[in-house]
């Protein structure tokens, strides 16, 4: 695959405030095409805000955001055409059936009818939604809704996937399919940015990981680089994460709770 842009995603000195709260604090980040990038951080650290900025759903107060060579601020519709997105808690149109929702998504992205049909059928089969695709989404479990949301992100073959907690509620088989599928997409040059609290998934899936804390990008690199930064050779991501974010001292909290 040939790209005429050096980075799939490029954030330069990006900042965002909500009144007194600093959601994103001067973040610089560049993600290569075809990379699977994990964004980690405690609740409220600014992960979701950054993901939304990439789609133009949140406007940065300062700095520049470029996605697939396009300035998000100038043409967010063009960016959205190339991106597949699932938010943290996707609210779907519950009055539609699963297949009607995916058909709607296919039409929104202007997919040809035959391609839309074959891809929807394939995804429904792969994620074991066959037989329930004609039911209204209101009757789906959270996991089934998550599957529909994920299919809607994959359906139009985006060049960039922005997935906020993508494996929430998925059964182990579906979670495995999604992880393997992300690797397949990587080989095709598709870039994935995902945020997750499940550190094992991030460690297993991501090429590089960024750890955010209080709106700042605290650490960035592959597992080995993160271990060096945390000075914890041979450690897992959980220990690194807790040390870097300064949230590792949990023993006192547990003792207090157990009184």
């Amino acid at each position: 695959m040939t790209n005429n842009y050096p980075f799939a995603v490029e954030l330069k000195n990006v900042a965002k405030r909500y009144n007194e709260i600093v959601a994103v604090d001067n973040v610089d980040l560049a993600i290569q095409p075809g990379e699977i990038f994990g964004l980690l951080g405690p609740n409220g650290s600014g992960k979701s805000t950054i993901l939304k900025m990439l789609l133009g759903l949140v406007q940065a107060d300062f700095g520049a955001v470029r996605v697939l060579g396009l300035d998000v601020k100038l043409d967010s519709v063009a960016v959205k055409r190339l991106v597949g997105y699932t938010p943290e808690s996707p609210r779907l149109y519950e009055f539609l059936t699963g297949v009607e929702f995916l058909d709607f998504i296919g039409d929104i992205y202007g997919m040809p009818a035959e391609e839309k049909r074959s891809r929807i059928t394939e995804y429904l089969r792969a994620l074991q939604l066959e037989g329930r695709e004609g039911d209204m989404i209101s009757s789906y479990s959270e996991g089934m809704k998550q599957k529909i949301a994920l299919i809607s992100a994959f359906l139009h073959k985006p060049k960039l996937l922005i997935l906020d907690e993508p494996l929430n509620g998925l059964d182990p088989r579906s979670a495995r399919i999604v992880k393997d599928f992300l690797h397949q997409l990587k080989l095709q040059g598709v870039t994935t940015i995902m945020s997750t609290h499940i550190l094992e998934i991030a460690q297993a899936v991501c090429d590089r990981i960024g750890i955010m804390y209080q709106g700042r990008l605290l650490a960035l690199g592959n597992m080995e680089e993160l271990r060096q930064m945390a000075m914890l050779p041979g450690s897992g991501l959980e220990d690194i994460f807790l040390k870097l974010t300064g949230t590792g001292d949990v023993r006192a909290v547990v003792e207090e709770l157990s009184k």
Partner: protein
Amino acid sequence: MNWKNVLYLVRVDRKSGRLLRGQKLTRYNPSRSRLTTFAFYFIAIAVGLGVGFLAQFIYSAAVSAEPNLQALFLGGYYSFLFSLPTISLLVSLIFTMLQQIQRSGVRATYQVPYWLPVTWEEHTVASVLAEVLGFPLISVAFISSLILVFSAFVGGFLSAIAAVLLMVAAAFMASALTEVFRILQVRFTGAVYKSTGRAAVWVRFVSSLVFFAVFYFIYFYIVSGAGPLVFVQTVASVQSAAWFVPFVWLGLTLFSLATGLLLQGTLFLALSLLFIAGLIYLGTLLNKRFGLYEPPAITVSRGTYTPKTGVLGRIGFSSAEAALVRKDLKAFTRRRELMATFILPIVFLILPIMTSLNTSPSTSAGDPFGQATFFLVFTTLLPVSMMAVSLGSFIIGEEGQGVWRIYASPISARNLVKSKYAFLLFFSLIVLPITGTAGFLIYQPSLRAMTALVLESIFLVFALGALSLANGIKGADFTEIPRPRMIRVEWSLINFIACAAVALAILAPLLAYELPVALFGTAPLIELYQALIISGVVAAVLGFAFYRLALENAEELIAKAET
């Protein structure tokens, strides 16, 4: 039964209104002032006292001017008093049932979490109490203060006190009955959906419309035109004959006690209280049986999925625009809270028909529109205009929290406005042949008058639809908890006033034609065809301007997705 649990559950139910009011509670404060909690009751009592004093003043003035009126007034007052428990029951029942339907669109659950140590008895009693504390008790507070003040001056104070107590009992009866209906409705509709498959969507749509139509019919019968007086007389005269119907026992109790039949009164009172207890017991039994009942999934389609090309693409809609129109069509036929929009034309058909039942249609030579003009306007101009205004103001906010899908998709402001405007035009105009034909058949106007009103209706739909869409985008409210709000109250009000002004501007030429004829019998200021042309031009110019405004507002909405 643990009454503390009941109290806690009632509190939770009553607090559900906080989100609706946009109240923000940032700090836990158990000693918060309770004054606002009772504000509605205080207001109802204050208004009731005011109306009571006014009624007493009017009564005194009328009787002092014409003493013969006293017997007539008092006869009417006692009829009203004796029918109050039954009327209170009916009105409370209608409102609590309509409230239940509104709650069908509520995302926040009002059900007690089933894992808590709460019994079904406690849950049922709490649910009934919470219903009573809403509209039923507010209406009782209003009427009670009114009749107590009035009777303090006019007489029959003891009867008024008894009426107040029996109205409270009637409110309990209505709420208990609503609780029973609610559970049965969940069970019944669930069973219907399960058995009808794809047709369930239409069963739900039609049954909801019928439900609304029936309850609105009763409601308007009571509160509009000659309805209230006829209704009071009917209730007062019928309740004695229908003594075997439990719902009139409270009214009969009052009648019996006031006329000295103490034993009979006591018997009806005991029966009424037993009936209320029986309803609560039945509600408990039904809750135990069906309380945790989950409505089955509605299967809309089975078999191979085949994408449809549709006609929209062939008439100039892009793939995304056509998809949005199809999605909205499904939303308005599948979401209960949106189905209510389709009841508007039916209401506007029912109202004039009921009011004009005793009016024979006729036309005079001097007035080409005839005496039925007023009713005809109700059945032609108003339903389509109200549809356009309602759809326009709701159609963006109805996206709810799912609006992220619009924000995250490659949908431009132009796509959004075009698809939404097309949808509201289609559904508003589709109403016109139905209500227009009904109006034509009932009031038999001249063909000329009918044509003029149909054309004006079309002009109004185009202009008011665009204006309401612009305001609906600007004031869109995507809150879904505890129920979908769709448009902020202030923008709803602004839209209503602006639409009234625009409608007047569009209709002004027609009024210049019609009013001199109808009011003064003089020649019209302009010819009818001139009036229609001017109206059309005004509507086109305004419609275009509002469409541009809607586009600008949509640009802003999409750009400011984060807020």
